[in-house]
């Protein structure tokens, strides 16, 4: 496969709106052709600004953006050939669905028959055939969103940008739309850059996720790597649930270290971003990696007191006061062996040191 690995390339891009604060700092990001990349982050993290720079509605303060190896900073938005789906759909309210879809083709002076064929194809792709003559106002939110997606794809753009397109939909619809967009991406192989603050959306849909915070990409990797191997405590905290212990490294080795916690006890952890003894660190542990009543098979074994029990059907969430952390969460599978989980009981909790990642201090 000779796919261009740097189809979209952000090269040392800075962006500032007021000349005082950098909204995007030294951004370097490569997106391969046909890839589905999600920019994920809290609001104000600069992800939408990046999207707007790529679309051409904002200019980078410094650095350059390349599309298929061509710098595009000086190309106006309408010449970039980038499709875009907006948060509030941005369908033209005075045009029918057909006219909305035909708009990008008409401005490109496509001939009438081709327009009809392409619009038909795009509408059937989002299973909205037969809705040509409806006005956008007569469609439900989900249908409007599908029209917006079809409109962004109908002129065969090289890249499609999606700016929180599912934000206004209810939960069920959002989930089915996630799959739909994912399937459309897989079937036509267009490069998609997707912006969201919803991590489950990002994990479901993307090939790779760029986690943004404070104007920087914190980590760019595949969904599973992002969840299993976060490289810093922001990512660990932002993606999924996370138990943390703050402490100081005492016994640093290459693949293992001891961390002395604030209450004096020591745990064994996997050194990720700590370098030597005395480093401050936050140890991150996924709730499902901590088990109860396993005997002494794992290298971390501690006793905690159950503070709260929340029944979830297939599993039970248990909040434990463990090693000075009163917010330690456990997910216990629902089985007859675990019937003694009651508030106030003492419980044995253990985990492998490999899963406890010693990251940068918060």
């Amino acid at each position, binding site marked *: 496969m000779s796919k261009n690995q740097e189809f979209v390339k952000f090269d040392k891009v800075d962006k500032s709106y007021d000349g005082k604060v950098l909204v995007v700092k030294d951004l370097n990001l490569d997106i391969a052709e046909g890839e589905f990349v999600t920019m994920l982050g809290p609001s104000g993290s600069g992800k939408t600004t990046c999207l707007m720079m790529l679309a051409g509605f904002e200019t980078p303060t410094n650095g350059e953006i390349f599309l298929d190896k061509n710098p595009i900073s000086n190309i106006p938005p309408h010449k970039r050939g980038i499709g875009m789906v907006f948060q509030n759909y941005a369908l*033209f309210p*005075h045009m029918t669905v057909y006219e909305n879809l035909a708009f*990008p083709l008409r*401005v490109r002076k496509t001939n009438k028959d081709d327009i009809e064929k392409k619009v038909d194809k795009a509408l059937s792709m989002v299973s909205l055939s037969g809705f040509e003559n409806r006005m956008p106002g007569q469609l439900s939110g989900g249908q409007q969103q599908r029209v917006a997606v079809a409109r962004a794809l109908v002129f065969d753009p090289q890249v499609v940008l999606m700016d929180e397109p599912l934000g206004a939909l209810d939960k069920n619809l959002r989930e089915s739309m996630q799959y739909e967009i994912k399937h459309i991406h897989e079937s036509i192989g267009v490069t998609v850059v997707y912006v969201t603050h919803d991590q489950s959306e990002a994990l479901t849909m993307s090939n790779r996720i760029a986690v943004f915070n404070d104007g920087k990409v914190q980590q760019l990797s595949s969904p599973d790597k992002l969840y299993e191997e976060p490289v810093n405590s922001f990512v660990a905290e932002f993606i999924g649930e996370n138990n943390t212990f703050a402490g100081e490294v005492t016994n640093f080795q290459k693949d293992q270290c001891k961390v002395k916690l604030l209450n004096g006890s020591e745990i064994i952890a996997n050194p990720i971003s700590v370098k030597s003894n005395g480093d401050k660190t936050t140890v991150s542990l996924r709730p499902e990696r901590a088990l109860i009543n396993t005997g002494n098979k794992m290298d971390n074994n501690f006793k905690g007191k159950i503070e709260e029990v929340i029944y979830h059907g297939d599993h039970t969430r248990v909040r434990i006061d463990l090693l000075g952390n009163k917010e330690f969460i456990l997910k216990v599978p629902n089985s007859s062996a675990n019937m003694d989980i009651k508030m106030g009981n003492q419980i044995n909790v253990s985990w492998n040191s490999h899963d406890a990642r010693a990251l940068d201090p918060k």
Partner: protein
Amino acid sequence: MSRETKQILTTDGVPLEVSLKKAERKNKIKAFLLVAPLLLFLLITYIFPIGDMLMRSVDDKMVTEMLPKTFKSMEKWDGNEMPPEEVFESFYLDFQMLVEEKRDGRLSTQLNYTKNGFKSILKKLRRKAKNFEEGNYKEQIMAVHKRWADVEYWRAIKRRAPAYTSSKYLKGMDMYKNEEGKIVNVEEDRRIHRILWLRTLEIAFFVTLLCFLMAYPIAHLLATLPMKYSNLLMICVLLPFWTSLLVRTASWMILLQQQGVVNDFFVMIGLVADDNRPEMMYNKTGTYVAMTQILLPFMVLPLYSVMKTISPSLMRAGKSLGGTPFVTFWKVYFPLTIPGIGAGCLLVFILAIGYYITPALVGGASGTLISNQIAFHMKSTLDWSFASAMGLMLLAGVLAIYWIYNKLVGIDNIKLG
């Protein structure tokens, strides 16, 4: 369900419909009482005056009542030859009655409207009639003045017989009913009203156009600028709106007169020679400038309120889909502002068509409008029925424009705020 289905009863056995009406009656009365003052106000200040105007404009009872016997005896007269003795006799009797009641002056004014020359011959008749002998009034009256022997003058009297007349409306369009009862145009050099109507339409049209051209970018700026600038701009738009109309017009007089600020400035920058200052007031230019400025807010505000609702992402969407900025504006933004354009244009046009103070002050002879003519007849000639007729024609014109607008754009497409 068929009508035979059993009537639904409440638990007390009263039909549900009756019970419902009873329960809602109180609310209905309350609601009506709340609206009643406004209804009364509208009735007294709007519906009645317009009705009165309508009556006044077609009312011709005055002459009918002054010459009751004459018109009765004239019914049989075909108007081809001189009327018979009978007519002369009843006219003499009617006239004597009017002289006694000292109302003959009014008659002569009214008849003079219909045909010039009545005033003097009625005066003469009054003098001579004192010495009339009984019988053979035809001879005696015809002897008073040769015009009394002219059948045209008797036809003119007969024309005033109906209690209602359309003559005021015809006059408003520079037309009249001639002796044969045909509607014809007045001579070319006396057609003043048509010029005024056309000028009114022309000025209203161009003022609307100018307002639109200036207001569109302003409204767009207002709708897109950040709040702190747009508020300031909004005040700039509204400040003149809050100033008295008279003050604004007067300030335009200061600016536009030959020794005024604008002319001084032109001379200063060498655009015009000092001894050749252009006249910018007391002509159409003055009317255009002042009216455009005064009516501008009425265009800006509806446009602004519509533009405010247009999401900026629509323009972005248009551009990202490949539309050049102009195409995107023309295909996406502009169509969405049409409700505002419609509202603004209708508002400005209707206000401009009936504008009075500004053209009266800065318009001069060539810049006055039909409303100035109406005022002239209200105040100077006291021909209120003619003023009413022209007022109603103006109203009809406005309604016609409204109707056309409704056909073209649809009135429910209008957005004022």
